[in-house]
């Protein structure tokens, strides 16, 4: 096999769920397509790497900073929904139940990985709590890590005098937001409860 093909197969194999067989099939598919396709694919990968960065404000991945969600004046500026990762933001967004702002933590506190508050974007969140923000919705996952994160953030947000609520109902214990279906997530958001 040509060196260039082997190199591409090796790179594709590093992607999740892609084994040797799938990677080989993808490379043959690219080679049998018109050359434009291969060039466009390469360019798209380069663009994603070069142009997409976390929004300085909310942590969402975007080509602009602030991102389109932060910059949209029609969104409710008084509510911030806190999620662990961008995939969770997309899941909440797809539920069409929420019109406020977001904050992506970039992870969760983890006792077994030794991951503490300094390793998530917690201080950045607290810094956003100006006079405009009335409520923070904690939409971290229903795992031990998600609960630990919610407990920690609740304390810090309350010190800033802002109401804190937690999505709960319907999210199965251990559940990651990105895998929960739209309807359930919409219910969980609308049925959020103030954290006691």
């Amino acid at each position: 096999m040509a060196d260039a093909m082997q190199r591409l197969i090796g790179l594709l194999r590093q992607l999740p769920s892609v084994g040797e067989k799938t990677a080989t099939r993808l490379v043959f598919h690219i080679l049998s397509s018109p050359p434009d396709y291969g060039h466009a694919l390469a360019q798209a990968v380069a663009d994603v790497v070069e142009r997409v960065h976390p929004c300085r404000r909310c942590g969402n991945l975007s080509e602009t900073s602030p991102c389109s969600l932060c910059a949209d004046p029609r969104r409710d500026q008084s509510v911030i929904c806190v999620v662990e990762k961008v995939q969770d933001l997309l899941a909440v967004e797809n539920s069409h139940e929420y019109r406020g702002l977001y904050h992506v933590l970039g992870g969760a506190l983890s006792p077994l990985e030794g991951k503490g508050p300094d390793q998530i974007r917690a201080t950045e969140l607290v810094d956003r709590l100006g006079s405009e923000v009335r409520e923070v919705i904690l939409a971290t996952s229903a795992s031990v890590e998600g609960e630990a994160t919610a407990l920690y953030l609740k304390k810090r947000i309350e010190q800033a005098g802002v109401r804190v609520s937690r999505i709960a109902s319907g999210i199965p214990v251990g559940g990651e937001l990105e895998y929960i279906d739209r309807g359930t997530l919409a219910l969980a958001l609308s049925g959020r409860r103030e954290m006691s």
Partner: protein
Amino acid sequence: MPRFVRTEAIVLSRRDLGESDRIIQFLSRERGKFSAVAPAARKSRRRFGGCLELFCYTRLRVVDKGPNRLQRLEEAVLIDGHDKIKTDLVAIGHAGYVSELIAAFLGEEDEAESSFDLLSATLHCLDQGPLSTVSLRLLELSVLSLAGFAPHLGSCLACGTESLAGEGMWAYDHSRGGILCTSCASGHENQNIPVEVQCFFRSLRQQGSEGTSVDPQCMHLARSLLAKIIDSYLGKPLKSREFLRKLAGV
């Protein structure tokens, strides 16, 4: 030949495998420490429900595919989710610590009845809230004792001079796992350990955490000595202790 095995076990840790599976590490009273693949555990809501979260005590059915093959989880039913632990950040930290500590000192082949009982009892305590610092030290001493690494105290390892009758400073020799008197310790790099710390440990072993009190300075020394003993046996610091250290600054 694959065979079905039923057991009850506590979730020690878990990690993602591929896009949708998880590998769960369990501690069972009869089967000791073992890992099993939970297919589709990340994506499917129904398959295992909330049974595979950290600290959960669960009734399991696993397929044992023979030696050196990862077991596969078929069914899990929750017995006790220790939900109260998840309402207190420090209790979560302590539960992570006891899980990691016990797991680190257990091999897959080791007999685990006492370790299981210790973990189970500690998780029940944590349902009521975080552990006291005295209880944490007792926990560490207990895990070391179960693993056969209880620190040798009370007399000099080299010459046998008794320590608890007298006063003053002794040295802890981490390579030998016990104390040395000042004359036997001279010329070596050892950690200083006053008699009060030894008395504290003895009291913990004899009376448990309830009847034992200790001043902050002695507690500080006891904590750092036990941490160093644990780290030197394991060869690396525990991540959950790092987590607790970070929480203490909150």
